[in-house]
């Protein structure tokens, strides 16, 4: 199978695009099956950050996390898991954009512990931004918006950090077993079909 034939955005091969789609599926599945009724804001960021970082590590190309975020949001809406309606897309896309932006400057961050932790918490903290945007349009005062965004963002960042902890070890394990390529390595892995 030719891994270099681009299927999507002149960047991802069909295999990579499907893999990213499956990462989006995992985000939705974990969201649906592990609905933790903790009553703590931001706990959904645990698995979201985990799979977004994993997706970026498995397909080390710019746009990978964004594609996963878009697909996960669309699947959530399609399956009726979006309790806030279509605007829940912001909760998926903002963290993904942060991860992709970080990947431009640090392509190998997914296999390093500290950068992964920092980027994961930053990505998860964008949940506060999404809340802030809605509050802004309802005419709430700036300090209320900031307070609310800070509370949401802080909890989300905490869970995002927890979610990013296992990612480097998993990525290294997959790379050691030659299941995924390293970033900057143009050669794809040996296909299971070969």
């Amino acid at each position, binding site marked *: *199978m030719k891994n270099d*034939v681009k*299927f*999507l955005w002149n960047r991802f*091969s*069909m*295999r*990579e*695009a*499907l*893999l*990213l*789609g*499956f990462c989006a*599926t*995992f985000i*939705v*599945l974990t969201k649906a*099956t592990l609905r933790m009724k903790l*009553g703590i*804001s931001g706990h959904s960021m645990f698995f979201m950050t985990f799979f977004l970082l*994993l997706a970026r590590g*498995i397909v080390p190309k710019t746009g990978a996390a964004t*594609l996963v975020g*878009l*697909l996960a949001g*669309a*699947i959530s*809406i*399609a*399956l*009726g*898991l*979006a*309790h*806030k*309606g*279509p*605007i829940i897309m912001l909760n998926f896309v903002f963290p993904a954009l942060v991860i992709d932006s970080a990947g431009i400057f640090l392509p190998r961050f997914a296999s390093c512990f500290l950068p992964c932790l920092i980027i994961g918490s930053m990505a998860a903290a964008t949940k506060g931004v999404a809340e802030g945007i*809605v*509050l802004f*349009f*309802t*005419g*709430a*005062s700036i*300090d*209320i918006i900031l*307070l*609310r965004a800070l*509370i949401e963002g802080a909890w989300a960042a905490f869970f995002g950090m927890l979610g990013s902890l*296992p990612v480097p*070890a*998993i990525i290294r394990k*997959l790379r050691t077993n030659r*299941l*995924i390529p390293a970033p900057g390595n143009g050669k794809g892995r040996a*296909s*299971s*079909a070969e």
Partner: protein
Amino acid sequence: MRRRMTGSDYACQYRAVDSPVHRLSAGWKMLISAALSIWILVVREPQPLLLATAACFLYYFFARLTLADLWRDIRFFLFQFIILLSLYLYKLGYPEGVWPGVRTSIQIVLFFIPGIVFLRTTQVSSMMKGLRGFVPYRILFLLFTSLRFVPFFAREMQEIFMAQKLRGARLSPQDIRRPVFWRDIFSCIIIPLLVRALKTADEAALSAEARGMGAHPRRTYYDVQELEKILASKEKTIQPTGK
């Protein structure tokens, strides 16, 4: 006959009833939802807000959705309502902080209601049909495939979970609560699931490429009825007209 309040299993679940809202196309529903949401965001005074509230609830109940559905959809926002009201009372004091806190909280809830009505009255197939007009087919293919594999991976996760438990992995509900056993979740469930996903992506990509997916700028669809029409018209041209 006493009307029984039936509910749904989860928030924003599609409700299969017949209503004027259900019969509208996805495009019109999105337009109405967007218009209502914008209206809700711009009102600040009590009377227009009351009008907007009435319009939202009218739209909601016009879709033959029940009070139980409404409670299931908006109960999530109760927590947010309490936090916002507390923040306003902390900032402005009592009673100056009451109206802004209540108004903002109500606006947030109402803002999401039109979107919730859209999800509750639109089937996935209608949504996808509406998207076909302007979303590239490659993205739609990915979306449909990912949706299609949701039950597959749910089953895989269950099987991996059961197999690993039989092998002695600490995955019981009591064990999962202890952080020392979280390692088992990742090494016994997540990694096998990822390996399975890699293999499935290989096979699915090979299968799709063998059918020519992505080979051309526009895709074709296998339509049995269309094929039968073509075959029928060809038979007519081939058959001799005997009188």
